[in-house]
């Protein structure tokens, strides 16, 4: 029997790894910040699947709003594109 929740969990396991590589390969730092937020959503879902829902709530708030927010503030204060 295929459990839909576990299938989504396996997809999220692959998603955090791919998201981590994709965030570090971007030349545009703003796009890297958004990909970091998306990877954090996948991590929050995985915390929920690993039976720690309190961590899932905390990670969803902190990793999605706060962390990309301060990175975006830093990008607007400095420069957006990576220099050669």
């Amino acid at each position, binding site marked *: 029997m295929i459990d839909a929740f576990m299938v989504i969990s396996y997809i999220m396991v692959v998603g955090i790894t791919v998201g*981590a590589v994709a965030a570090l390969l971007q030349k545009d730092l703003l796009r890297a910040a958004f990909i970091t937020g998306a990877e954090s959503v996948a991590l929050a879902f995985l915390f929920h699947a690993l039976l*720690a829902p309190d961590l899932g709530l905390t990670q969803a708030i902190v990793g999605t709003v706060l962390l990309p927010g301060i990175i975006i503030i830093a990008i607007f204060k400095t*420069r957006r594109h990576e220099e050669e």
Partner: protein
Amino acid sequence: MIEITLQLLSFIAAGLLVVIGLGGMLFLDNLIKKIIAFTLLSDGVNLALVSLGYVEGGIVPILEPGSSYLNFPNEATLIFGPGIVLTNIVIGVSTTAILIALTMVLYRRYGTLKASKVLKGERK
């Protein structure tokens, strides 16, 4: 034959996150990219600690009305790992905020975000 479970897969993913984060911190030249790699490394360590306490087919360690006290030690997941990780998430974001502030000070002084140019010490 090792059975492939969610616990094993998330432990492998945690190891990959630690490797990616450490490699990014060492080999990338942009300071903000280094900070993003640091957060990825922190996420990997958190995921490793949480997946160690996972019990296959277990329950969330919260006692509800009507639930049995006898099966609780066998079924509930371990709470020591998540107890540390909850602290680490909050402290990690404040550490990142301090790193971001220091990066903005460095940019104001040197006019660049490249770590190699900052290490040469040429003022703007």
